[in-house]
């Protein structure tokens, strides 16, 4: 080692230091993972014991008919847990989980009783603290919990969050605002970020779950400059069967965005008349696959015998999926068009025969 030049010795020293540091880091990670695993294994039994007791206790409270929560607590709580237990973090964590698990599966009065438990143990304060945490998921989880247990109080904080860069925060803010009684369309109109399909599904299913009979003023959303809000508006109009809309449907049919065109055609198919039949048939050849499928659906719902040649023509489309949809349109439009399909099954060329069999057998 003495023969080695000084600069090489220094380099060897630096390399060895780096290697040693890395090995120490490895060791620390290994020890921390293993100790965590061992303690988790030890805690697992304790957790399940606590969980079982808490479940028994919640069931007893749900079965209780005579006492109010204060009386029940003063009488029953000692049968299940000690006051010291109630202060333990692990205990409160499991209690919180079980209250929300029960809330998910219960309805009506039972759900109200669960909410009383939640209030009694002061979990409201715990959740509110989460609102002021830096981490986005703490805020989202807290709001979702409040929504689930129907304990969301009026607050202005969610209005600002409608434009939050994180989509989960935005989504939960929309739900919170709507739950607090805000006008659905006004709230949705505030969103400046484009909505993804998933966000639209979430909003639609939330509105359906909230049991709104109708969404007033949907025209505002449909005529919004944001493309995705326009699409959401049309989808909502379709689902909630809003017939009285103030919109220029003709301009949407030729809208540059194919998703808008698909949404308006699907809406017109379900809620409109046959006035767009010729226009849509004319546009068919230049459209993209999803729009073509929407047009065929429109034709199947509003078409007449006069449209059979048009559909027949589509049985030779370049895309097999469109051919199958066209054959399905024949099958569904009316009894005359159906008989054309049956004719194809017996008298068409081999390819048409196969197509007819495919559709008639619902493959």
């Amino acid at each position, binding site marked *: 080692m003495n023969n080695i030049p000084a600069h090489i010795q220094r380099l060897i020293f630096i390399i060895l230091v780096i290697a040693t540091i890395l090995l120490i880091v490895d060791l620390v*990670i290994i020890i921390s993972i*293993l100790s*965590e695993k061992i303690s988790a*294994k030890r805690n697992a039994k304790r957790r399940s014991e606590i969980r079982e007791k808490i479940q028994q206790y919640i069931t007893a409270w749900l079965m209780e008919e005579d006492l109010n929560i204060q009386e029940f607590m003063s009488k029953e709580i000692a049968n299940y847990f000690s006051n010291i237990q109630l202060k333990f973090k692990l205990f409160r964590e499991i209690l919180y989980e079980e209250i929300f698990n029960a809330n998910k599966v219960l309805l009506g009065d039972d759900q109200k009783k669960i909410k009383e438990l939640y209030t009694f143990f002061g979990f409201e304060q715990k959740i509110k603290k989460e609102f002021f945490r830096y981490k986005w998921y703490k805020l989202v989880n807290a709001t979702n919990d409040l929504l689930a247990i129907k304990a969301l109080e009026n607050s202005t904080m969610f209005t600002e969050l409608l434009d939050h860069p994180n989509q989960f925060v935005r989504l939960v803010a929309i739900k919170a605002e709507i739950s607090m009684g805000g006008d659905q369309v006004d709230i949705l109109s505030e969103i400046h970020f484009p909505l*993804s399909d998933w*966000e639209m*599904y979430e909003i639609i299913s939330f509105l359906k779950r909230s049991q709104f009979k109708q969404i007033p003023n949907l025209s505002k959303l449909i005529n919004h400059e944001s493309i995705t809000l326009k699409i959401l508006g049309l989808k909502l109009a379709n689902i909630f069967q809003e017939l009285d809309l103030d919109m220029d449907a003709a301009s949407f049919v030729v809208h540059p965005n194919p998703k808008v065109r698909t949404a308006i055609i699907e809406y017109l198919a379900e809620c409109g008349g046959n006035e767009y039949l010729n226009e849509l048939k004319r546009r068919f050849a230049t459209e993209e696959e999803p729009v073509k499928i929407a047009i065929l659906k429109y034709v199947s719902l509003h078409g007449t015998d006069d449209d059979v040649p048009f559909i027949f023509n589509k049985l030779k489309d370049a895309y*097999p999926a469109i051919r*199958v949809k066209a054959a399905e349109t024949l099958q569904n439009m009316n009894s005359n068009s159906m008989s054309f399909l049956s004719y194809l099954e017996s008298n068409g060329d081999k390819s048409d025969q196969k197509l007819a069999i495919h559709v008639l057998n619902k493959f």
Partner: protein
Amino acid sequence: MLTFFSYFIQFGLFLYCMMIFTSYILMSVRSWKVLKHHKQANLNIDFNAFRQNPYLPSISVVAPAYNEGVTIVENIRSLLSLGYNNLTLIIVNDGSKDDTLEKAIKFYDLEKVDYYFEYRLPCNEIKAIYKSKNKAFKKLIVVDKANGGKADALNAGINVSYSDYFACVDVDCLLEENAFEHLIYPVINSHKEVVAVGGIVWLNNDAEVYHGHMVKLQIPNKFLPRIQLIEYFRAFLLGRTAWSSINGLLLISGAFGIFHRERVIEVGGYNKKTVGEDMELVIRLHKLMLNNKIPYEVAYVPTPLCWTEAPVTKTILSRQRNRWARGTAECLMLHRDMIGRKKYGIIGMLSFPYWLIAEWFGPFIEAFGLIFTLVMILLGYINIYFFVAMLGLVFSMSLFFSILAIQAQETFFNRYSEPKEIGRLFITAVLEPFIYHPLTVYWAIKGNYDLFFKKTHSWGEMTRTGYAPATAPKKP
């Protein structure tokens, strides 16, 4: 002169080493951030609600089967139990020589049907298409075709499919019940066109499986599968997660992934001339979208959704690695025009050069570096202390990434509960650089040799040992 040459090579090797480690560090940091976000996001997505949703894109699962007679009934049962609402299951019997088709016909009450389809992608003759008479299996389609290999069978399945997306799945893989709900999420949550989505494939050797469902997962008992498990942790958790976050993913595992059906048809389907058909398809999809300047995404879901059995013997593992090496080389050569081209963005400027240097040339550089250093030590041009110190650094770094990958598994998925099992995994990680890594380097070099000098293009046989005896799950 020799001294200068020795320094020059040493400097090159040192640079290579530093480049690889730096890229691993960057990937690990990036992956950690993505995994953390993904974990929190997943808690706020109701995947069960997807199951009932009829508006989600439809998916056809295309599962090629060749000589799977022993397990075909169980495998189909497992795939049929997937919960996705808009799902069709297409089993492609690729000219099996055993009773694969007969067993499927008998058990699932199949009959020949006049199913309408077109040969939009090249594939060997489709002899017949079967559907079940039993309404309970109405999602099932069995295609019987002349043997043509995996890529050919997948092309046949795509020809028969009418879904928006198709999934390529190895028929013997076990999928999580909500695998497709997870895979479709990036598709419906992106503002760009999602042409492909991959998921994590993990190993389940020695797991207890009952009726196509995993009852108990455990760390593999044997050394070889256990060491591969660490490799999978590194590749899927630290590697692909990072690449996908910058839309630079070049490979979606052939065992499990979904693809945009029309886009795949547009690029000509699977290439039958390469053994790396999965990677080659992804590259062609990148190329198509980048050439046409269409905003797109090749997405990745960092959640373990697919379970497969790792090779347990050196012979079979060597064949698999040989094939992977050949596949990588073939794909990179086929699409060499993308390397370093600005037009191809991240793919051309980052992913391709990385794959070229780290994945294809890596084994050659490593082998050359080791031999060169040993020769130089013998000739007295390199100091033995320096060599030992460098060896220590390389070992500590490679161990660090293995430990980090295990830590990522623990932090974000925590699929293994026994501390003893995790302990064994750590010991395996320590042994890996000495016992296993030199072998993988050798197999990769051998694969390249076979490709260029023996012109080998075959898959090589892969035998499976099967899961632990199927027993009824114990009641909790």
